[in-house]
Each structure stands twice: as structure tokens, then as C-alpha cells.
């Protein structure tokens, strides 16, 4: 096992009949929050269930939290807190009993599981509703309850499958904050499977993009946000034409979005003093200068497009992914 890798999988294959669900997935998840992105049917849920040992894979090996995978799946499940995407509850139980049951199944003594259930439900902001039967809970409450169940045994690895589904904006923000606290303050490793790209941007340190059962991209969010070619974005309030001409005179390509935006292609942040110098020469007033960042949405769509180009993905999936990314991006802005 490599140092610092909490999850390391090599060449994992899984088929459902003729359909390839995971086609040679290799990935490495390090401590922190990692976003698992992918269009519908890309194999995210299969990957998570495989990690938990809930579905048998055809081949592949690896390590999870130091345990050999898939051989020690039960030992791994003991160390994982899992929030499933699907609604799941034991009918007839109160919320607090449901969390207590999760604790007991993970080995907590009965009373200790009850005490711990109250503790994590406080953390998850579940008030007196904890004494109501789970069937009466709203979607948002059930999400919070599942989150509490995932935390009750204090696992070092938490796998969250679409945790913000059904939450209102305030609850969503609160949940993302809790994820951040768990990762940063308590050193939890969190794998966050989601379609909501702003959630990924807000809390994730790294991203794995899974398309058609294959890992298309696995990188830190920081490195991913760097474009393939470095660029500087400028907001020029006065003399933008003169500055553009000066830059082009140096043989450097530019693009403009009138009236004030100018993008200089091929320059690193370290080249900023040169830009200041040229602006000084031509009398341009720069209001803002920043390195250009690649958008997560674009990276996601590019990964899906690449899969579609290689014939591994239906064109319909590509269109829906573009649409989803565009909608999310629009909503985010």
C-alpha cells in the first residue's frame, strides 16, 4: 500500500450481464474530501458498493484503510460510515432508535449506542424529531438521519452518496460545513459521490471523474482548476485596446470580452510584473488581475465527451451531462 492512500484500487472489473459497470478502475484516495463525479450509470454506486464489499467484483485488488480489499470487506465495513443514496430505514423505529441500531450493528454496547446516537443527532441538528417514527420524516430529515447513522460509530472513512439531495439551501450549506469540519478538524477521509458540482467545489480537495465505468480523471481540485495552458485574466477599466496591442506586440496571444475583460494566453502568475509594466507604458488602468481557472463543469463535460468520442458512452448521456453541468453552472453563478 502506498503511503497516505486511504483507498487504493487496482484494475477493478465488474459486469452486470453483458453490461460493463466497472472497466479496469484504478484509483487512489488520500485523506481529505474527495468528490466522485460521473453521469448517471457511470458506475459510481457500483464502485461504492464494491468498496463496501456489497457487490462482488470479477477482478481487481487493493487496500482500504490498510485492509486488503476485497478479501477483508467486513473488516472494512466496520471502519466505514456509509450514507446511501436510496431512502432506507427500518419501519416502525424512531429516529434515535434507528441511529442506535446502526451503532449496535457496528459493535457499540446498547446504552453507549443510544448515548452516541443522541450525540451525533445533536451534531446533525436533529432536534425533538428524533423521537418520531422515521416513516414520518421529510426527505431532508431522512438525509440528516442517514448522515447521523453514518457517523454513529466514529468511522475514519465516510462514504456519502448524494448527501445533499432533498436538502433546502440552508440545510445543504450546514451539511457541507459538517463535512468540512469532519475532514479538517477530525481527520476523516470522506468520499463524496454527487452530481452537484458546486458542492464539490465547496468542500472537496480532490476529484475523481468516472465515466462509463472508467476513471477519466483523478486529481486534486487545485491542479484541476489550472488550465492546460496558463492564462491571466485582466479587468481593464481604461485603455484595454492599447494594452492588448502592446501584449500582442510581444508575440503573445490574447482574447477579449468587451468592454473590459482581456485574457492573456501563455503567461503564468509570475509574469504579472511584466503585465504591470506594459500597462504602465500604454497608460492602461488594470482593476483586477488573476490566473485563469478551468471550470469544474467544463472539465466534467470534457471527460464525458472524451468517453463519448471513444464510443463508450451513448450520445444521449453526453447531452444530459452537458445540460446538467450547464444548469448547475448557471444556478451557481
Amino acid at each position: 500500500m502506498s503511503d497516505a492512500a486511504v483507498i487504493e484500487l487496482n484494475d477493478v472489473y465488474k459486469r452486470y450481464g453483458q453490461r460493463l459497470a466497472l472497466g479496469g478502475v484504478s484509483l487512489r484516495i488520500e485523506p481529505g474530501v474527495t468528490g466522485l463525479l460521473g453521469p448517471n450509470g457511470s458506475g459510481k454506486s457500483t464502485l461504492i458498493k464494491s468498496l463496501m464489499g456489497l457487490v462482488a467484483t470479477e477482478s481487481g485488488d487493493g487496500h482500504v484503510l490498510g485492509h486488503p480489499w476485497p478479501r477483508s470487506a467486513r473488516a472494512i465495513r466496520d471502519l466505514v460510515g456509509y450514507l446511501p443514496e436510496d431512502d432506507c430505514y427500518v419501519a416502525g423505529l424512531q429516529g434515535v432508535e434507528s441511529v442506535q441500531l446502526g451503532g449496535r450493528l457496528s459493535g457499540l454496547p446498547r446504552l453507549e449506542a443510544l448515548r452516541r446516537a443522541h450525540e451525533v443527532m445533536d451534531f446533525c441538528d436533529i432536534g425533538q424529531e428524533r423521537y418520531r417514527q422515521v416513516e414520518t420524516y421529510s426527505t431532508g430529515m431522512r438525509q440528516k438521519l442517514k448522515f447521523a447513522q453514518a457517523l454513529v460509530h466514529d468511522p475514519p472513512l465516510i462514504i456519502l452518496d448524494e448527501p445533499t439531495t432533498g436538502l433546502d439551501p440552508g440545510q445543504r450549506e450546514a451539511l457541507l460545513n459538517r463535512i468540512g469540519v469532519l475532514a479538517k478538524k477530525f481527520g476523516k477521509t470522506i468520499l463524496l459521490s454527487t452530481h452537484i458540482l458546486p458542492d464539490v467545489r465547496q468542500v472537496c480537495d480532490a476529484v475523481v471523474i468516472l465515466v462509463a465505468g472508467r476513471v477519466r480523471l483523478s486529481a486534486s481540485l487545485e491542479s484541476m482548476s489550472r488550465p492546460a495552458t496558463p492564462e491571466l485574466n485582466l479587468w481593464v477599466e481604461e485603455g484595454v485596446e492599447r494594452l492588448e496591442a502592446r501584449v500582442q506586440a510581444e508575440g503573445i496571444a490574447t482574447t477579449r470580452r468587451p468592454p473590459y475583460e482581456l485574457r492573456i494566453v501563455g503567461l503564468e502568475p509570475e509574469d504579472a510584473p511584466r503585465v504591470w509594466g506594459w500597462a504602465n507604458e500604454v497608460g492602461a488602468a488594470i482593476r483586477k488581475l488573476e490566473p485563469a481557472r478551468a471550470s469544474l463543469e467544463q472539465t466534467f463535460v470534457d471527460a464525458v465527451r472524451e468517453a463519448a468520442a471513444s464510443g463508450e458512452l451513448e450520445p444521449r448521456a453526453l447531452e444530459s451531462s452537458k445540460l446538467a453541468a450547464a444548469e448547475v453552472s448557471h444556478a451557481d453563478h
Partner: protein
Amino acid sequence: MPIIDLGYRRWAGARSVRPLRWLAISSTSLHLVWRAPWLRRLLMLAWLPSIPVGLSFFAYEQSLQNFEWRQLLAGVFTNMFNRPDISARIMADPLEARHDIWAMLLLAFFRYPQSLNMVVLFGMVAPRIISYDLRSRAYLLYFSRPLSVTEYMLGKAMVLIVLLAMTCTVPALGVYAIGLALSPDTSTILQTWDMPLRIVAASATLAIPTAALAILYSAFTTESRYAAFAWFTTWALGWVAYGTLTSSELAAAGPAILIDDRVRLVSPYHVLGEIQAAVFGALPTGSDPLSAILLVSVVTIAAVIVSHYRIASQLRV
């Protein structure tokens, strides 16, 4: 809302051993079914038949010193249990027949009221035991913990087994204890020391196959009423088929198989009864329970395998 919120806190206590964690499923499920008032009433009713059995033990112990009691008991064995051989032994030397009499009384307790109680009790509780989990996807909650499908099934089956033990095993052991208390000397213990073991074995004979069948029906549907229908239909059809095949007119007119012991195999109730009779050593001379044991074993194993497959298939999505 909490008066004080300390945020998230770590937990680092000692955990229970992994192979026993399925007991949490049993205790939680029992806790859930125990909330139903009808179940508590049903369990209380299920204890009532232990009173006549206790009175029978009293009658037997009286018959050791009282000839009239002896005649009464012999009449019961001839008319109710169709065992004139035991009646003759009671009249000759009731002390010598103590073991067989106790065994017959306990078998009658298991065979008539408690088997019927079991059918009703399981019919009310068992259909929802897996089907509700399938409907609400609770299996995700269970299997995201270090539990196997087998342990999950064991946890659920234990609910039925405990309920059955509460209606059959515990009152039968209670009746046995009362019998010992009423007996005039300690030789009773030497004569009947094997009864508790036979009671436990007879309970297991009743509990294991029926729990396996009930879980199978429950695992086949998300609608518990269908499972309940299948459960009651199985018993009802068995009774009707057995009754039809053994009716004297039909038996006289039909082929030889109709008057053969193998006719019992069409009815789960009678098959289990034959095995329980064998457990209590109360089978009539010449009866062979092997075919019944074989049938019950095959059905139990098949039910466990199919249920396991059905539950595990929920995860293969």
C-alpha cells in the same frame, strides 16, 4: 434542540465481537413487534393451554393413589389420544408408565394448541419481517455494517424462534416443573430427566422449519399481505388435503397410498406432528418418521437457500 451543543466528538470505546452483532437485529425486531398490543394478548392466550396440561399432570399423580383418577386418565388416553396400549399400562402399573404419560401429555401440548398458536403467531409477525425491510430498503442499513446475509437471516429468524419459545418451550418447561413439584417422590426426576431435552428438541423441530418457510415467503415480496396469504394457505391446503385423503369413504375407495402413512406428507402440520411424536418417543409402533424428517429437512434447506439468494439479490443492482 440541545441546551448545549458540543459539536462532533470522537468515540473510542470497546466494541462487541463481530460474530454476535446480529443479535442487535433480533433484539430491535423483537422490541418492534412487542409494541403491538395484539401480540402481547396473543402470547397471554398462548399460555392458557398449559393449564389443562398441568391439570393432567395433577390427575396422573393423583392416579398413583386413587383408582378413580386412574380410570379417568386411562379413558383420556383411549378416547382422546387413541392409545389403548398406554391406557392398559396405566391400569396395570401407572408408576411404570410415568415417562410415556408425561411424554404424551407434553406432545399433546405441542401438537394441538401450541402448533395452532404458532401458525397464527407466525402468520401475524413473520410476513413483515423481511418484506418491510425490502420495501424500505433497510437492508442497506444492515449490510453497510459488518453483517453477512446469513447473519441477517439468523437475526430475523431468532425473532420467530424467541416468540415460539415463549409460547411453547417456556410453558412446557413450566408444566414439567409443576409436574415435578406435584410428584410424591424424587424418583420422578430419574424417570423423566430427559423431558426438558425433548421439549427443547420438539421446539426446535417446530421452530426451525417453520421460521425458514415464513422467512422465505416474506423475502419474496414487499407486500406482507401476500406473504401472510401464502403462509396461511400452505397450512390450510395441507389440512384440507390431509382431511380429504384420510376421510374413510375416500380411503376405502382409493388406491393403497391413501391409507398409507405417507399421506401425512401432504400436510405440513401432520409432518411436523410425526417428527415431534418421534422426538417425544410417542410414535405408534411400526411408524417410521424418516420420510417426514427427510421432507422437512429438504424444505428447510431449500427455503434457506432461496431466501439467501433473494435477499442477496437486492444488492446486485
